[in-house]
């Protein structure tokens, strides 16, 4: 999206006053962290929030997550999507924003092209931008110049249940470590609702680690409505694992990196693959991460949400599902099988606690309760708000998050809501574009951050210096 240049007479004098703000939008999540410039339609960088660690060394980015000795895969967030390891988080973000996103670096006056001494040519890198000055050339005393994001206001997103401590920590990193000129913190469901054109909405965010339901009224989160549970993408992976473990014959997930070559085999026959040998042990965390890739593919190509009639456990439906054409999935080692009713059953637990794999398990911790299912979350969220606003919320249900892209998800949601609230007008708004669903909050942040009028909202560096980190609680409600 190109931006209209302002007439020079109205060109603002302060750094981030105009439309041309070079603001960065950072949207951290448990599975992925997204970053890019405000005003763009898509985040330029989407990298896993998982990172590799060898001893003290941290390796960021998907391409560095490879089989290595003493390699552990970690995540800077906890399963509640709240940052836990702040050092790692700040390192990963900085790597992402500075190395990968490469915002234009401020040039010291001697190098900014106006004081050219020798041949009069400004060195260009392949993007056509004047290349950054070599570090030793920065003779200017201004220490701020050397901080990486000196010219970029930063808009960050957060979960509605983020703690006050984590919010203050965020502004500290942004202001102290990076010297950003301005900062703003927005809640993800608010941005998703805005991006759908709604200031009042019930936002259902079905993400990787969590599924949350939040009521937004006039652009504000109704705190008492916020509900969440672990019924998200990773939970679904867990269901698939249980299903594979319990199937006859038991299916082992062999991640792609372990397979050296494979022979085609008939459906249901044992795999014939030669596995790669490593002369160092593969850590469990790395193996789990790689298995997750296979499961993601399985979710994308096989899993489907049971649409209707009724629920999957309704008598007769399971037999009917079994008679439907199945889908074939081939694992990296060549094992393949036709999946029929299983592909519905793994997702059924999102809606019906009794249908989940392991529902009859004695182990309480792995079982879902009714209130953790999606209908349960929605009911609890609406019970937490005023009766008068409920019809308005139900008429504006915004669905976002990658896991909501499961086939049949919206049809089922419509059915469940209709059963929960008979006679009410229910309207589901789910972006048709896959990317808008995956990056809903980021896109919302991108638009907000690019608005020329938004500059008066930012918490400026000066305000931070005068008031301290506590200002984020006062301003970013």
């Amino acid at each position: 999206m190109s931006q209209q240049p302002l007439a020079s007479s109205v060109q603002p004098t302060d750094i981030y006053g105009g439309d041309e703000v070079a603001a960065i939008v950072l949207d951290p999540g448990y599975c992925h962290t997204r970053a890019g410039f405000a005003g763009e339609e898509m985040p330029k960088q989407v990298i896993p929030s998982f990172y590799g660690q060898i001893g003290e060394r941290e390796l960021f980015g998907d391409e560095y997550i490879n089989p290595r000795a003493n390699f552990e895969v970690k995540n800077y967030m906890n399963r509640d999507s709240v940052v836990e390891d702040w050092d790692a988080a700040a390192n990963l973000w900085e790597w992402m924003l500075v190395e990968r996103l490469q915002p234009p670096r401020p040039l010291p006056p001697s190098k900014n092209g106006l004081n050219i001494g020798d041949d009069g040519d400004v060195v260009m890198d392949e993007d056509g931008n004047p290349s950054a000055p070599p570090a030793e050339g920065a003779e200017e005393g201004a220490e701020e110049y050397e901080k990486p994001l000196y010219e970029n206001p930063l808009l960050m997103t957060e979960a509605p249940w983020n703690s006050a401590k984590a919010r203050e920590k965020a502004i500290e990193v942004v202001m102290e470590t990076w010297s950003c000129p301005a900062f703003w913190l927005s809640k993800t469901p608010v941005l998703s609702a805005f991006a759908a054109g709604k200031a009042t909405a019930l936002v259902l965010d079905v993400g990787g680690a969590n599924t949350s339901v939040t009521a937004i009224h006039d652009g504000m989160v109704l705190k008492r409505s916020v509900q969440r549970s672990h019924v998200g993408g990773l939970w679904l992976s867990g269901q698939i694992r249980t299903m594979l473990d319990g199937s006859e014959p038991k299916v082992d997930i062999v991640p792609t990196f372990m397979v050296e070559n494979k022979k085609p085999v008939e459906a249901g026959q044992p795999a014939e693959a030669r596995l790669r040998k490593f002369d160092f042990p593969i850590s469990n965390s790395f193996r789990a991460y790689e298995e997750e890739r296979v499961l993601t593919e399985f979710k994308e190509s096989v899993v489907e949400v049971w649409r209707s009639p009724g629920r999957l456990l309704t008598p007769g439906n399971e037999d009917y599902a079994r008679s439907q054409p199945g889908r074939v999935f081939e694992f990296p080692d060549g094992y393949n099988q036709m999946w029929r009713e299983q592909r519905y059953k793994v997702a059924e637990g999102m809606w019906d606690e009794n249908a989940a794999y392991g529902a009859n398990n004695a182990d309480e911790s792995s079982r879902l309760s009714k209130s953790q299912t999606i209908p349960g979350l929605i009911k609890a969220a609406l019970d937490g708000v005023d009766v008068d606003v409920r019809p308005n919320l139900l008429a504006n249900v915004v669905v976002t998050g990658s896991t909501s892209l499961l086939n049949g998800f919206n049809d089922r949601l419509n059915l469940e809501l209709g059963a929960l609230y008979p006679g009410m007008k229910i309207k589901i708004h789910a972006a048709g574009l896959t990317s808008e669903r995956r990056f809903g909050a980021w896109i919302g942040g991108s638009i907000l951050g690019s608005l020329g009028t938004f500059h008066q909202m930012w918490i400026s560096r000066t305000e931070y210096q005068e008031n301290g980190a506590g200002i984020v609680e006062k301003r970013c409600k």
Partner: protein
Amino acid sequence: MSQSGATVSQECVTAYNDLKLNKKYKYVIYKLSDDNKEIVVDSTSEDGPKYDDFREKLINAKTKSKTGAVGKGPRYAVYDFEYQLASGEGTRNKITFIAWSPDDAGIMAKMVYASSKEALKRALTGLATEIQANDADDIEYDSLVKTVSKGTAAV
């Protein structure tokens, strides 16, 4: 202040007061200025206000995107609904705020309107109720009156 930082021009309030106090208009439609910085008056009801004209105007509203492409556009509107009570106890007026944001409008336009709405709503005092409308069905006269009157209007 709205979350986008957009402001409300004085003419918005003037037109609203003309509608509320002087009954000069049946409706006022507002839009964001082309640079998205300020909310201004788009149009007002002319002589012989008809609801259909109002609805047509909303459905045909356009917004220019940053690249210059013209697409469907969101609007804000205030409509002075008048209806007969079903109980026969006379007529009632409800000044209603409508946030019109068609689902097929551009994401940028929708976002700007949604995040700027608060500013306008706060500037207009005495609104009886508010409607968020996203497609043509949402702004059918009958269903709107039903919602606005909370079911007390005579059909």
